[in-house]
């Protein structure tokens, strides 16, 4: 059996969860075994209606009087206890902050290996897994062999499509109550503070204008802001620009920043380091503006303009405004 840890928003599974279920179902089908999921009750409960479309056979609701909110250690311990009871060959979690955190606790509790960021998995003879996983934010792939009583896996972000199962199932439901101790509640969410969202978040923007070291200073970002406004987009930055203190870290695109997937990304004065490019892999079209025709970004872009962004961007703004 494959056991999948489901994150929910209200009573619905999150998008990342549905992506993860594509991987989990591949594993279960490959083994000819069942696909079971575990979700935490509290406030509301995961609705099982939709899950049948994704081939889920059984839903375990974790029910516990102290488990109202998120508590990483207690959640990890609960999943580990359930896993010890139902003995899955694999436990899969979404490739999110929470998915990784909960699964790492399961790994520590069961003392078994865990492989994060998987992009492809084959079950080979003797129950071992041959897998491929992302390294360096996806600019390198590692081929590895994993053998364990229980295999712990997360998919790489947006690597698996959301896909319904070939035949719909009718999931059965049951409750699972873990036995938890005080120490497992040492860490829990005390409160959630809402933030005021200004503008379009980078991850959701349809148009992103990127500014790198070539922008030369904080003031010249005004031109990029203007272009973004004209195109209904948002401004992002390279790490070099953030390190210079020109832009806040929230604007950073790349391996340790935001991942974007706009219709068009326009990097200005950005050289195209691999750690930057893994953040904009999802862009439909890349149009680079750079003084250096040899810059790596020119190889990686669809379109390029060779020249000084300080001349090109204002002229472009004027032309669009007049059009």
């Amino acid at each position, binding site marked *: 059996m494959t056991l999948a840890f489901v994150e929910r928003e209200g009573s619905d599974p999150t998008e990342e969860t549905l992506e993860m279920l594509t991987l989990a179902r591949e594993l279960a089908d490959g083994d000819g075994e069942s696909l079971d999921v575990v979700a935490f009750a509290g406030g509301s409960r995961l609705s099982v209606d939709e899950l049948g479309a994704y081939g889920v056979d059984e839903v375990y609701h974790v029910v516990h009087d102290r488990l109202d909110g998120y508590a*990483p250690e207690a959640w990890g311990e609960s999943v580990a206890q359930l896993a010890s009871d139902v003995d899955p060959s694999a436990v899969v979690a979404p490739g999110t*902050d929470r998915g*990784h*955190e909960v699964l*790492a*606790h399961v*790994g*520590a509790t*069961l003392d*078994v*290996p*865990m492989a*994060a960021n998987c992009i492809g998995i084959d079950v080979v003879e003797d129950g071992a897994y041959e897998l491929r996983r992302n390294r*360096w934010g996806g*600019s*390198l*792939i*590692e*081929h*590895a*062999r994993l053998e364990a*009583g*229980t*295999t712990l896996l997360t998919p790489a972000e947006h690597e698996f499509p959301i896909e319904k199962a070939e035949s719909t199932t009718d999931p059965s439901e049951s409750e699972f109550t873990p036995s938890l101790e005080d120490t497992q509640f*040492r*860490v829990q969410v*005390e*409160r*959630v*503070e*809402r*933030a005021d969202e200004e503008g379009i978040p980078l991850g959701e923007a349809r*148009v992103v204008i990127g500014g790198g070291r070539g922008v030369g200073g904080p003031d010249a970002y005004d031109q990029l802001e203007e272009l973004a406004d004209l195109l209904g*987009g948002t401004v992002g930055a390279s790490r070099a620009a953030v*390190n210079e203190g020109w832009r806040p*870290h929230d604007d950073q695109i790349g391996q*340790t920043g935001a991942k974007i997937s706009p*219709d*068009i990304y326009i990097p200005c004065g950005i*050289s*195209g*380091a*691999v*750690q930057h490019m893994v953040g904009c892999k999802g862009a*439909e*079209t*890349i*149009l680079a503006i750079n003084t250096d025709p040899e810059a*790596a970004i*020119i190889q*990686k872009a*669809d*379109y*390029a*303009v*060779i*020249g000084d962004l300080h001349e*090109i961007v204002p002229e472009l703004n004027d032309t*669009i405004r007049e*059009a």
Partner: protein
Amino acid sequence: MNVLACIKRVPNTGAKIVLTDDEQRIDTTNLGFTMSPHEECAIEEAVQQTEAHGGSAHVLTLGPEEATEQLRTGLAMQADEATLLEAGDEEWGPRATASAIANGVRELGDDGAEFDLLLFGNESADAANYQVGTRVAAELDLPCVTGIKSLDVEDGTAIARREVSGGEEVYEIALPAVITVKEGINEPRYASMRAKMQARRQDVDRREPTADTGAGTYEKVRLEAPETAESEAEILGDGTDAVANVVDVLESEVEVI
């Protein structure tokens, strides 16, 4: 308050990653080395917390002798002490790494260096296993929270914040604790020339790592550099002459104007 920051030496890859012929590692012939931005922030946080609350900031790595270079980066950023768990050239997996770090922390404790806060990167730059910090916490029976982007310490309690969609989760954790951080939690300082010179003369504490292995095995077979579409971009022109073509792409192809 004593704070430990754990860091990992990795190649500073440029615009393209080249592998060795045996596909076991990155060809570093022409490369420098660095650490994850998350880990630079862990060092900065360790230094800032000890500047605010007293005590000492300590950096630790498990890696080859050459990793003293990254420890010295930490010292130049005003960490007080550095420990190398000297592990040779082979990369250790996350479980063995965590076990070795936990054992190293116990040894340091026996030698009088007790830590109130153990800081890690949320994930390493190269391997991104998302687990070493959590496993160290489990071995040492310490509370642990990951992915933190804001940290305050008050009266022995860490108030840690994690970004979630639409806001922040707030955690309050009694120290000692393990916290893994993300870039953006602070702005790491640039070390001055003078600080770098001083760091070069500072002692690095060297130890033999020991690790216990658990059930199951994870073995790296080989690395692969994915084919990146080396499609030379269509050049729309030089300088402002290109503007009309850019507008054309925006209008007819991407349809954003």
